[in-house]
């Protein structure tokens, strides 16, 4: 019996999970963040149901502060693939002018966490796929693949249902919903190798290019539009940068790089001994911050 390669095993596992959700869950949705993990997850969904289209829509939580290139990529992809794309924004937050410059961690709570909860509630989704990986961060390392949220969308890490073999229990109690992480067992390296093997298109921001940036607290923050508020002493400089993760542009640190091809990114990624969440500003707060956020409903 020939064993499957490492990537084939991960692919098979993810497809099995995605198909289980489609078969057992009442109203699933795939959260689509436009990043590389989402791109891989969407690609897996397309493969899982081929020649059928995935039997669920995509949902993007738009904070209105994403990179412009991400939004263009998102809208083009949805049309190309012929998949229903839902976009949800916390309009109340927009009206109140909640923004990442002035509101710090409250911004993430209001425009991401709250918006996500409201988006899921609004459409009545009972299960949501997320692209989270266990290698990203320590509290995520302990989360089940099928992870339950109570009616307040909160995670109870101390009381997770046991998950055995490939026998996933998808049964919900009243008010509960599911988060499902088909990429749980993938590492950042697996993601890049798979993108390369499958020739998956990703947002060009992942490739190094001359971009206008400001150096802020050691991070290279790209000035993506006129809303960027310069602090005294800051100046916009052109630097060749790329992004390891994509999110809201004021909260996403780029890194100086010449890697403008997939192979170059992979080589560089593996040579850099920093884990990718370093470039997400919120994680710096404290080691326990992610666990707290997840308990409160952050994806």
């Amino acid at each position, binding site marked *: *019996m*020939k*064993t*499957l*390669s*490492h*990537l*084939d*095993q991960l*692919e*098979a596992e993810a*497809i*099995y999970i995605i*198909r*289980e959700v*489609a*078969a057992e869950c009442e109203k699933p949705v795939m959260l689509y963040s436009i990043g590389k993990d989402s791109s891989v997850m969407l690609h897996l969904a*397309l*493969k*899982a*149901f*081929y*020649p*059928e*289209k995935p039997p669920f829509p995509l949902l993007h939580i738009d904070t209105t502060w994403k990179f412009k290139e991400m939004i263009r990529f998102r809208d083009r992809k949805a049309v190309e693939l012929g998949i229903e794309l839902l976009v949800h924004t916390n309009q109340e937050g927009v009206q109140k002018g909640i923004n990442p410059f002035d509101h710090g961690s409250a911004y993430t709570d209001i425009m991401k966490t709250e918006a996500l909860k409201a988006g899921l509630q609004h459409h009545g989704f009972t299960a949501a796929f997320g692209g989270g990986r*266990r290698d990203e961060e*320590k*509290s*995520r*390392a*302990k989360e089940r693949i099928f992870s339950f949220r109570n009616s307040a969308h909160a995670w109870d*890490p*101390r009381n*997770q*249902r*046991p*998950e*055995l*073999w*490939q*026998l996933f*229990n998808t*049964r919900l109690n009243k008010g509960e919903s599911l988060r499902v992480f088909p990429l*749980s*067992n993938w*590492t950042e*390296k697996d993601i890049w*190798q798979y993108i390369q*093997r499958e020739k998956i298109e990703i947002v060009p921001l992942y490739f190094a290019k001359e971009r206008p940036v400001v150096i802020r607290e050691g991070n290279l923050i790209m000035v993506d539009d006129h809303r960027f508020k310069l602090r005294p002493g800051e100046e916009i400089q052109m630097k060749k940068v790329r992004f390891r993760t994509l999110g809201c542009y004021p909260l996403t640190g780029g890194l100086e790089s010449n890697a403008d091809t997939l192979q170059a990114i*992979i*080589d560089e990624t*593996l*040579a850099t*001994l*920093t*884990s990718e969440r*370093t470039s997400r500003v919120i994680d710096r707060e404290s*080691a*326990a911050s992610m*666990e707290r956020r997840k308990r409160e409903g952050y994806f």
Partner: protein
Amino acid sequence: MKPAKPMEKMTHPTRSLLKFITCGSVDDGKSTLIGHMLYDAKLIYADQEQTLLLDSRLGSREGRMDYSLLLDGLTAEREQGITIDVAYRYFTTQERSFIVADTPGHEQYTRNMAVGASFADLAVILVDVTQGILTQTKRHLRISALMGIRHFVVAVNKMDLIAYDHHRFEAIKNDFLSLASAYEVKTLQIIPVSATEGDNVTTRSLNTGWYQGLPLLPYLEQVEVTREALDAGFILPVQRVSRPNHAFRGFQGQIASGRVSVGDTLISLPGRESARVKSLLVTDRTVELATTGQPVTVQLDRDVDISRGCLLVQNPDLNVADLFTATLLWMDDTELIPGRSYLLKLGTRVLPATVMTIKHQIDMTSGRQIPAGKLFKNEMALCDISLSENMVFDEFKHNRTLGSFILMDRLTNMTSACGTIDHPLRRSTNVIWQKTDVTREVRAAQKNQKPLTLWFTGLSGSGKSTLANEVEKRLLAMGRHTMLLDGDNVRHGLNKNLGFTEVDRVENIRRIAEVARLMNDAGLIAITSFISPYERDRGNAREIIGDSYMEIHVSTPLEECEKRDVKGLYQKARNGQIPNFTGISSPYEEPLSPDISIDTTHISIEEATDLLMQQISRYLSPL
């Protein structure tokens, strides 16, 4: 910190994957061992190292590097200094990719250890050399074996504390070998290590010159854990049927064993229809051949009745039965009581199942058989399990996919237990009932419902008989098992000798309540339709019937009933032709707290039935 050699890592994209768990007692140092392995092998990222140093300063070890902090992720765990849930870690060396599930050692988290073990091919069991083999060690070995692990490494830890004494190591080694002889073990390596000092973790220690084997990491890099080929042939549990259009009908799933080619003849189970493979997809690629573990979409050359939960196989000689003996590991806070009904998931099939008998509990440490009437969290037992329908399964030792299952609680939806099938049972040849235990629960479970008595009360002409009749029809259509008791079938037989005096009325209601209770004991939903005017009598019925009693007050007012007067009874009563007529010459005591109340004055029969069914549905167990 020196960077690893990334370019070389990239050159093995087809490298194999080893999934393993680490287990041991609370203070054996599992997290420290894995943390140290990752650290030594330069497999942790620089910023994780910074966090580690930072956390160490804040942590319990007073500034010394605490490798376990790399793994213990949850805040609660760090505060308590123990591991409460499985933590997964990913690393790659030049030889192999690894996923390690670090599992909790503490007894109360046994079920979390089982979660880790079900995922792994190999177990690294830690033994503290100063403690020797503990009950936990024995427990972990048993759980690992139950969940299907056949490859073991024993890391005899804290060798530094006994000055690397060879004899004490040998003593523990012999203890373990005799312990392991009771299990099916394919490979076993026993290694002397020190997790804090790093002896034999990634490199051979100079302190243990007497140990000839490989250190831990090099051993894990080369150990072969491939499961041998199965003779069972091709098996595909169908996950879903894909029908994007009329021309295409594909059966999707992950191949559980064997291989399949275009042109092969396959048989569906349990339907036993055969067809040839017309086309084969592995994900979105058209292929001629697919093998174990691959996600496939199979198209057949003719229409076969197959849905999720069915199987496509080459060899149809699999067990198709509704009864088997299995080893259960109970994981729920609510204990197992034989006779209770659960939902069983095996492969892609979910069906109601009942644990009929606990044959005996298995002591986790000694393996001794203990008689038991119940099974509590983290206990293990051999049980007979009965299914509501025939299902395809296999013994776990032959086939992991068709031999393993979970039980889900039908009310809380909790994953209550996991189990592995030992052997099938034949109903006719097996006396399966424990003592006289064909209980009410068992009878109800067989009918897949919760027994209830729907006690309709109300004035003559209020509509109770009509509604009782309609409700029974609806329930029947839903696949429920019911029995309607009304004046027609009770007064003319069982209660033929009773008249309409108050004494007889009381006796009438008492008998009806007793019969309803017997029907509930038989697992049925009993529906009674009698005026039952006295609160005391209804209270008596409630007492006889117990928790299954549900009072439905058809509260249509007297004026309306009298206006309808379908049988002309009110007219006769008013004329004094009927003595003791409820509402006219005899009182009707309004129910004080009925479960459901319905007035039919202004609504149609259908609307009233809809309303009733909405309410009743809340009391029915889910199918």
